[in-house]
């Protein structure tokens, strides 16, 4: 369970997040939607302990991320890009992560197979395509077989086949009772994957609820999204 409460982030005189609150529940895929620059990545970075909140809390199973005793078996995080040094091989990248968490070495090959990267494991990350880099990021997140997955724009750079694979994969994770939180600015793709939706615009949450609630009387999620984000612009 992810619980974000009254989260505020200020940089200089600019408010990036204005007291946002939402939950991502086990057994559900929660879509965190918003245009570029809405503050999605900032919220996820605070949730993962990378940035500090100005005020408010972002908790994983009731505690801040940095207090988790086994972070990698609790949360898997996928950022944009690979999250790996470009001169290291994919396998070497996963190897050091496995050591940091005291996980069995066999997990490296397992996750490489799982994301379809086994053939490129000994290539340097700098030679990976965008899609391969994303797969490596996902492989790293899956090393600890975590109960919670947090993904920042996961479909960026994936080919149609990869997107479809990821969608099925995330649905299965949620079906097995785990928590999935993903940020995206792609409505069509998100609508097919998520159960719950939180829409963020300019650091404010403008709508949240189940997919059905949010779409409501609109034809598509995209229509609903523009209706919600436009309303905020006018007011």
């Amino acid at each position, binding site marked *: 369970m992810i619980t974000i409460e009254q989260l505020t982030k200020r940089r200089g005189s600019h408010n990036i997040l204005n007291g946002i609150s939402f939950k991502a529940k086990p057994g559900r895929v929660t879509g965190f939607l918003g245009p570029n620059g809405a503050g999605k990545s900032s919220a996820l*970075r605070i949730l993962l302990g990378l940035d500090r909140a100005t005020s408010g809390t972002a*908790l994983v199973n*009731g505690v801040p991320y940095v207090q988790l005793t086994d*972070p990698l078996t609790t949360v898997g995080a996928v*950022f944009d890009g690979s999250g790996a*040094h470009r*001169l290291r091989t994919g396998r*070497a990248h996963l190897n050091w992560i496995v*050591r940091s*968490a005291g996980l069995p070495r066999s997990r490296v090959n397992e996750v490489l197979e799982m994301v379809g990267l086994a053939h490129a494991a000994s290539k340097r990350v700098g030679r990976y395509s965008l899609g391969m880099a994303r797969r490596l990021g996902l492989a790293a997140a899956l090393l600890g077989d975590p109960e919670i997955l947090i993904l920042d724009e996961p479909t960026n750079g994936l080919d149609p086949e990869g997107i479809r694979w990821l969608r099925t994969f995330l649905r299965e994770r949620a079906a097995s009772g785990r928590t999935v939180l993903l940020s995206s600015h792609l409505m069509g793709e998100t609508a097919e994957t998520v159960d719950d939706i939180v829409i963020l615009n300019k650091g404010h949450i403008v709508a949240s609820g189940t997919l059905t609630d949010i779409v409501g009387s609109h034809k598509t999620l995209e229509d609903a999204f523009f209706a919600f984000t436009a309303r905020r612009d006018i007011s």
Partner: protein
Amino acid sequence: MSTSITRTYGQEMRRAIKAELSKLYSLPITWYTLCGTFIVNLILACAYSNAGLQGLASTQSKLEIGLASVGYSQAGLMILGILTVCSEYNGGQIRTTLTAMPLRGIQIFSALFALTVVLIPAAFVVSSSGVLLTEILIGDAGTPIVWGNFMSAILGVSGYLTLTALISAAIGVVLRRMLPALSIILGYYFIAEPLIREQADLAKYLPDTAGVGRWTPRPEHASALTPVQGGILLSAWTLAAIIIAATVYRKRDA
């Protein structure tokens, strides 16, 4: 709040050190930098030995001639220190690092410890290989090397090289980017400090001069520190640099 499990910091640190060592070994630049430093040092030692043979060096001591090259090749280990910590900011690896090891104090300490594990043998090999090459090249022409002096000089120089590289790494942690960190460190050690050293009396307390005192007590500077004083002072500089770097690192947004 809910988790009342006592953390096993010792185990977390052991894992973090293993992870950081694995990072260092698997980065090709680590090996390029170490090999480059070793080779450049030998070339310089060769040049100094030739100067010694032709009577151009200010000393006939093979030990001093053999260690002279370290004054330049130390740059290699400074670069290694900076490269190691700044490599976190390549490809967004820092996010992976801090999500895997969210206790930043433990993580940065482990990274610097792993670096030290690589630096100590590297510094030992670099400094002693220069002296050995000088011994081979100069042979009977120079002042013979006394074993005891050799060992204490090599230990002193290795310590100096290791601590100086750690100071460089600490500056790299604060600045995050390689080029600014490199310009500051190399600019300080090779341009600013040699100028200050000649001018100000207090300069003997600066990290470089304090460190140089570790292996060559300078009789021409009556006020120079003894090797032991220099060693203590350089260790204090290193500790201060690491504490400042760790404090900045723990507090800022990654």
